[in-house]
């Protein structure tokens, strides 16, 4: 049925983004110290998303942020809820599959975080007494694994047609020893962080309403959905993470929007530098 194209889509979107990125790096000249992989602190790795790479799953997405790759599959909604779940609402179950070995405490926490995050974006009253299963397979891990997984799940839920209040957009923010915040951290960077925050925001939205809020207002309306932090950071550092993360989440939102629009025009992998 729905199959992905193997070749990436590298069209106007990327050119546009490249331009923007260069403009951005000029503005931030003072932050000369670029990261080990050449990115500036606010720069994300190239993102790509493949729609419905799996045949049997009701919706699936392969989401890559650089070399971190997560495959997410959705089955459902299927009739009935498990014991202990409220049958008056739709229930969501999450299964995490690591690349090797059994799942441990870390993966259990990922499952729990994902479940709660997805519950908050799904409209649970549309299909009461049903269960939707979300299964994640780690395909590559080069840092920011949980944010990548959340983005993958969100895309897979949309492809499966699960009714959502809005999208969830996740970003990994790392705080370096000197308090500098870097976004979409890779594995090597994560080993040098003082602390980090994995943040999830609602997507930035289009509105048909005549009163167009400006970007600032719009951003401030997007409240934090999930925040998982590790390590000690100052209050200032944390708010710096939120501010940067929120700004980055608008760019990820744009990427997600373009990806989801692609679905009508056939199944292609979408790549972009965001």
């Amino acid at each position, binding site marked *: *049925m729905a199959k992905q194209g193997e070749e990436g889509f590298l069209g106007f979107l990327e050119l546009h983004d490249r331009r923007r990125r260069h403009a951005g790096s000029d503005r931030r000249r003072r932050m000369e110290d670029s990261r080990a992989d050449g990115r500036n602190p606010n720069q994300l790795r190239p993102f790509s998303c493949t729609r419905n790479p799996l045949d049997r799953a009701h*919706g699936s997405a392969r989401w890559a942020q650089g070399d971190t790759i997560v495959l997410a599959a959705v089955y459902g*909604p299927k009739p009935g809820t498990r014991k202990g779940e409220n049958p008056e609402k739709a229930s969501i179950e999450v299964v995490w599959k690591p690349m090797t070995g059994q799942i441990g405490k870390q993966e259990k926490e990922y499952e729990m975080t994902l479940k709660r995050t997805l519950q908050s974006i799904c409209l649970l009253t549309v299909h*009461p007494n049903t269960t939707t299963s979300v299964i994640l397979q780690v395909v590559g891990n080069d840092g920011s694994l949980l944010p990548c997984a959340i983005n993958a799940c969100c895309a897979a839920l*949309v492809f*499966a047609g699960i009714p959502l*209040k809005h*999208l969830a957009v996740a970003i990994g923010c790392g705080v370096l020893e000197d308090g500098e915040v870097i976004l979409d951290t890779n594995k090597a960077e994560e080993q040098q962080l003082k602390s980090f925050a994995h943040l999830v925001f609602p997507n930035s939205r289009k509105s048909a309403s005549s009163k167009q809020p400006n970007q600032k207002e719009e951003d401030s309306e997007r409240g934090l959905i999930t925040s998982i932090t590790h390590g000690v950071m100052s209050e200032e550092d944390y708010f710096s993470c939120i501010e940067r993360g929120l700004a980055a989440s608008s760019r990820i939102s744009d990427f997600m929007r373009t990806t989801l629009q692609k679905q009508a025009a056939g199944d292609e992998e979408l790549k972009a530098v965001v």
Partner: protein
Amino acid sequence: MDSRKPPPSALVDNHVVPGDVVLDLAEMTNQTIKLGAGLRQDCDTIQATSAGRLRLSKPNKYWVESSQKRYVPSVEDAVLGVVVDTKPDNFLVDIKGPSLAFLPVLAFEGGTRRNIPKFEIGTLIYARVVKANSIMNPELSCMDATGKAAEFGQLKDGYMFDTSTGLSRMLLSSPTCPVLEALGKKLSFEIAVGLNGRVWVNAPSPSNVIVVSNAIIKSESLSGIGQRSMVESLLERLS
């Protein structure tokens, strides 16, 4: 502004994603709008709940058109169902929805307690959705609105396969979509398309059934021209 003719949403025929505000009710007065699939009301706004193209059927019906592997039942849709169980009053039928559909054993033309059809598990049925809401199981009928069997009922022989709901809509669109038109010029076959993303094809020779099925499956991501040339090459291999 004429209050009975609401201005269409600025996003009509555009792509929307969940959370997009499609209509702002605060800006409208005394207007009735109808919401179809993929939309919900949240306070003063109408928001998208799924990704796809926003459609407006004049004067006032909005919905989000998208393509999925699963189906959300909607009244008057013609669907292909598979019998999974038989109860005294109903057949339980899988229509790829969130819950099983009921097909009352009497919902057949001239149906009485004496002539209840015998359907084994795995029987394929072409039926119409007559009830659909999120709380109760959807209900099917094998009669049209006037109580006639029309084309509804069991489909025997042939081959059934799954498609996306978008592909089903394309197959049912008029004028006839390129893939069916191109196939129909060279081969004779019967086809039943369920809006729930199932297609049944029958023809005297199995090879024709296979060609038609594969042509339809492959047409999903192709343009009209692509569909025609794909059918050409499939037919060449057949001869």
